[in-house]
């Protein structure tokens, strides 16, 4: 096909002519027989500049356009729009950066000018190899699959479910509520009313747009944003193994956490004596309003041990300090003359109200003892002796009852689920955010979101917030009737060159590439690919090319550089 290439050099007001002899550039370019027309303009990104460009394209019937101006970061989109309006394929356009990376960094005018020429020629030869890429549009489903029926999962479901959006809520146990459901009460200043969780469960059950699958597991998840397919298997005794296939536009993972196994470290003496209990067991005592020793007596003194498993796991679980305070308050309020000792490493009270809550506890006479670690916890007489270390000297205290606060750890089927949906885990074994800072609920799999403690220790309000965050992300990307536009500059695989070594699979962070055993080749899912080109770099057969950054296009630039 014969290419009509137009080249337009933008002066950007005084900025570029200052350092680059535009007329020389235009003159020399006009001598190239590849190009149909070369013109300059004082400021192409201005409105009349854009108008001028549009008219030029139409008048000269250009098929390809090169603009030499500022950085593509500034105006690539601007000019691509103009090309599109002028009825040209916007990808047959190349913006050459002769301002930032030429006029503004090369002091010598002659040098800058010849450099600009180099760049523009490179642009011209590159654009000749551009392909007219087409934007695709995909129909989407708007329903959502939520995995995990804890408070996070429920909250997500509630805020997602709507008149034209169904939510499938899958819980592997036989009841909703998760860990939060087991708590006697949530921290007073964070909502003392335990009803709250129950209410939410009720709301979920009564919401006709939420299908609840209890005693069920997700066995398979395929697809991408807007088009997921999942297999849910029921484990209810009457319908053992019954599977259901559902379609969804997005997936929310809210599989929560488990608790550190106190038996792992004998120092806590857990299991050796009935009066050494875990925080969760103590919650039950509160629920049943029976704070008693095994001998039925009320405890006269209780030690609350923080940070069990912090050293072992290598992170602070953030909430233990607070619920220990909660216990202290409860004890003081219900057994007025009980003696409460809190053994802590660092008090972690990161929320604005926490401190006051701590101060109140102090006022009630709770004793706070700093320690570096628990050395031993053993029975002595009818008391329990807790031996602890505080900067290098050990100390003892003996009490009737010991309550130990274990660290939060990834729930046991986390890794399995990660495998299933090919989601990355972090060093601690929790799910990994797409971006720890800016995308705290997203994952590399676009359309799959994570909320609550599946991402790591956090308190209930935070979990709820994240659930709302996931629904925010989903509601803004899955709008009924709207189509998704996948990235266009993606990788594509030339099947007759691919030898099926699947190296590309292992380097693709987004799981966008899969292997087709029948054809014996790797296949790119364009809806998932983000176009980084890592696969291209990894393919020894040269079977993969990244659209708009193909070998030939880049190589034209190289050759120009070497001229």
């Amino acid at each position, binding site marked *: 096909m014969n290419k009509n290439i137009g080249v337009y050099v933008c002066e950007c007001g005084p900025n570029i002519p200052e350092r680059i002899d535009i007329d020389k550039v235009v003159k020399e370019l006009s001598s190239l027989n590849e190009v149909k027309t070369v013109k300059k303009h004082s400021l192409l990104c201005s409105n009349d500049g854009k108008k001028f460009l549009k008219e030029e394209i139409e008048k000269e019937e250009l098929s390809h356009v090169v603009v030499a101006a500022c950085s593509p970061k500034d105006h690539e989109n601007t000019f691509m729009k103009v090309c599109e309006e002028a009825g040209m394929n916007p990808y047959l356009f190349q913006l050459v950066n002769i301002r930032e990376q*030429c006029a503004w*960094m090369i002091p010598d005018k002659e040098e800058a000018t010849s450099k600009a020429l180099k760049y523009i020629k490179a642009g011209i030869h590159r654009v000749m190899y551009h392909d007219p890429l087409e934007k695709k549009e995909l129909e989407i489903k708007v329903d959502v699959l939520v995995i995990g029926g804890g408070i996070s999962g429920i909250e997500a479901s509630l805020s997602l479910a709507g008149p034209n959006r169904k939510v499938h809520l899958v819980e592997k146990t036989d009841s909703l509520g998760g860990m939060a459901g087991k708590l006697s009460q949530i921290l007073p200043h964070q909502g003392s009313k335990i009803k709250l969780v129950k209410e939410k469960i009720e709301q979920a059950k009564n919401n006709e747009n939420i299908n609840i699958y209890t005693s069920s597991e997700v066995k398979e998840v395929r697809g991408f944003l807007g088009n997921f397919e999942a297999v849910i298997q029921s484990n209810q005794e009457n319908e053992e193994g019954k599977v259901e296939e559902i379609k969804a536009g997005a997936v929310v993972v809210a599989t929560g956490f488990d608790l550190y196994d106190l038996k792992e470290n004998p120092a806590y003496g857990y299991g050796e004596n009935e009066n050494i209990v875990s925080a969760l067991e103590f919650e039950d005592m509160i629920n049943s309003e029976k704070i008693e020793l095994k001998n039925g007596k009320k405890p006269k003194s209780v030690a609350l041990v923080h940070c069990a498993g912090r050293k072992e796991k290598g992170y602070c679980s953030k909430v233990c300090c607070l619920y220990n305070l909660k216990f202290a308050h409860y004890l003081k309020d219900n057994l007025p003359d009980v003696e409460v000792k809190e053994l802590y490493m660092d008090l972690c009270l990161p929320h604005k109200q926490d401190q006051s809550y701590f101060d109140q506890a102090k006022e009630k006479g709770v004793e706070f003892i700093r320690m570096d670690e628990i050395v031993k916890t053993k029975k002595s007489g009818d008391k329990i002796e807790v031996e602890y270390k505080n900067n290098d000297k050990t100390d003892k205290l003996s009490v009737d009852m010991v309550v130990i606060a274990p660290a939060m750890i990834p729930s046991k089927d986390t890794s399995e689920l990660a495998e299933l949906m090919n989601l990355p885990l972090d060093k601690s074994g929790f799910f990994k955010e797409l971006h720890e800072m800016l995308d705290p609920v997203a994952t590399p799999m676009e359309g799959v979101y994570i909320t609550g403690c599946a991402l790591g220790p956090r308190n209930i309000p935070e979990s709820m917030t994240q659930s709302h965050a996931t629904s925010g992300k989903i509601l803004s990307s899955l709008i009924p009737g709207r189509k998704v536009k996948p990235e266009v500059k993606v990788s594509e695989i030339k099947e007759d060159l691919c030898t099926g070594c699947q190296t590309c699979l292992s380097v693709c962070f987004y799981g966008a590439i899969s292997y087709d055993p029948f054809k014996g080749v790797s296949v790119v899912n364009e809806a998932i690919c983000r176009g980084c080109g890592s696969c291209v770099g990894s393919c020894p057969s040269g079977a993969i090319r990244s659209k708009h950054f193909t070998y030939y296009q880049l190589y034209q630039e190289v050759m120009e550089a070497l001229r």
Partner: protein
Amino acid sequence: MEKKFKPNIVGFLCNWCSYAGADLAGSSKTDVDSSLSVIRVMCSSRVNSNLVLSSLLWGSDGVLVAGCHPGDCHYEQGNYYARRRFALLKKITEVLNLEPDRIQLSWISASEGKRYAEVVNKFADDISKLGPNPITSNPKV
């Protein structure tokens, strides 16, 4: 007297960090050696051995690959793979005595306009010290 040798250097800059860094160098009017020709790629991991090698063998005096600092990759892991591939190339050129100093990998973030200038100027300087790429004038290649 004949004028100082001016090398031809190809620079593959990742779109998100290094290219932006280069832009910043420009917009803060920093002088940068003009012997480097910038080629924009989406990620440093796009640069495969062939791009670097053929640039060298077809006569470029130096090749710079620049990307986000480890851990900052816009695509999370790209630059780690890029680094491995580069390590391999570096070693090969070392072992074969093909002037390994002519290829360089640098991490330049979007805010490091100054660093960009330093890196490029230094590299350009080193290369001009090295002189023209012997391969360019080597009829055996």
